């Protein structure tokens, strides 16, 4: 397995909304090997607090040399990252984890919510490059227009069309991504790839289960190491026992996981 610990230079930092940022980093080691759905562990500072690295999906790569992470400021680590400047260096471990699988012969449908949209851009881009026959159907949800619009822009620039949904109805469908899915004419041979908050992924999994559509999900858990050593990042399995999100995942076949259905 090819993984690296790298001091990578921040070549660009963009503020997409008041609390969503995108950082472009230079590392041909990581960028040339990364696959959609993989993540990196980022050290957010040199001190001992925050202590642990933070996991972020690789949201896209370019020229085999650069990769991007897209994140929302929610706590100390992400707030420190938001204060980084271009030209500074970040210590990165990666690329880590399994990626999404995709089959060009299938109808592909990508469903993302909030920051879970990040890895889907990389996946959509790879599908466009490799599957010339048919572009994927893309359904994205977020709280409001302010958060969703800049994320949709990246997909549009690639020439991909997006079905948007917002919680407040300020952009696209007023409601959930599953409300859009219900209205789409999805073939049973369709392959769904999902990343977003757990309630959203649960809803999409249930939708797919009913329609007998295959569904892969990217799971988020607390992570200390990102490489299978601490055993802290478990997700419960349907057959009993646990899998490790960092090394067995983060992408899993939704059928194999145990979902909390209320």
């Amino acid at each position, binding site marked *: 397995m090819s993984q690296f610990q790298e001091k990578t230079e921040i070549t660009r930092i963009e503020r997409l909304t008041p609390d969503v940022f995108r950082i472009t980093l230079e590392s041909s080691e990581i960028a040339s090997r990364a696959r959609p759905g993989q993540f990196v562990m980022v050290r957010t500072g040199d001190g001992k607090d925050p202590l642990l690295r933070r996991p972020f999906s690789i949201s896209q790569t370019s020229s085999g040399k650069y990769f991007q992470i897209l994140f929302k400021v929610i706590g100390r680590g992400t707030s420190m990252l938001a204060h980084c400047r271009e030209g500074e260096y970040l210590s990165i471990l990666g690329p880590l984890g399994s990626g999404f699988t995709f089959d060009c012969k299938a109808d592909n449908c990508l469903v993302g919510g909030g920051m879970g949209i990040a890895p889907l851009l990389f996946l959509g881009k790879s599908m466009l490059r490799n599957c010339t026959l048919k572009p994927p159907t893309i359904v994205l949800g977020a709280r409001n227009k302010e958060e969703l619009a800049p994320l949709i822009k990246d997909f549009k620039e690639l020439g991909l069309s997006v079905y948007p949904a917002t919680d407040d109805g300020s952009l696209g469908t007023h409601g959930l991504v599953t409300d859009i899915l219900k209205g789409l004419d999805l073939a049973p041979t369709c392959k769904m790839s999902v990343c977003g908050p757990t309630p959203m992924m649960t809803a999409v999994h249930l939708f797919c289960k009913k329609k007998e559509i295959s569904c892969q999900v990217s799971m988020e858990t607390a992570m*200390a190491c990102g490489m299978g050593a601490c055993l802290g990042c*478990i997700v419960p399995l349907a057959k009993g026992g646990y899998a490790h999100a960092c090394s067995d995942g983060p992408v899993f076949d939704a059928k194999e996981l145990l979902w909390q259905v209320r």
Partner: protein
Amino acid sequence: MASSLKADLRVSIGSLKLKNPVMTASGTFGYAKEFEPYVNLHRLGAVVVKGISLEPRAGNPPPRIVETSCGMLNAIGLENVGVERFVKEKMVFLQDVNVPVFVNILGDSIDEYRVIAKRLKDVPGIAGIEVNISCPNVKKGGVAFGTIPEMAALVTAAVKEESSVPVVVKLSPNVSDITVIARAVEDAGADAVSLINTLIGMAIDHKSRRPCIANVIGGLSGPAIKPVALRMVYQVAQAVSIPVIGIGGIETYEDVLEFMLAGATAVQIGTANFINPRASEEAVEGLTRYVVDEKLSSIRDVIGGLILP
């Protein structure tokens, strides 16, 4: 390059000679293979693998970990593949790496410790056993073996009887006087003691009014526990005559030197591996440079060299 420098970093743990005093701590280095992309494993003094029980254990439900100030709390619940799969699957890789391997073992009865030690006896590539006595004794109402001197001694003697390699007993800091336990296991035949295991702690999310980890309480590790670990290593080193292996919040070669000054013969690096997977190898490089720069004849000159006021 530090790797081309020559320095005498050798230390001994019982009959075992280590090329340097830097080991990795159980549960923080997987089965070593996980770190192969980052570390030249053969340059480490030794590796200690994740705790092994007789039968595989699934471990605790999530969430299992949470970050706290300068540290982390974990309640992994001793998830492991069990001794049989460990020997058949995990040892194969370790046998090919030129590094001494300590197998950390755990059980919920004295008999379980004994049976695991017996199964590991004569397995090629195992340089030593580390006995985790911080586990609850199921037969004695769940009180940890490591908190009662008599129980700690019985576990030590049982493992010692079944082992042909050095036996290190890993002490729990969650006791009122750690030197009493250290002396008890020394008398029972331990070849060395390692300390400290995690300090029991707790974290609460006031917003949800819930504990941050599902097990409610967990083990604290990382830089936050270093002063406590140093104090305990210092006290134990004076109480016993077997080697002491220092553990707790060690990240850099400077931290290693501090533990050695307090009396440790060797050290283990734990949580720091998660933040810098190369921490152990970098500590070896730092110690090499230190011995050369200070013109020491050996790193052993540092052990117990604390200058008191």
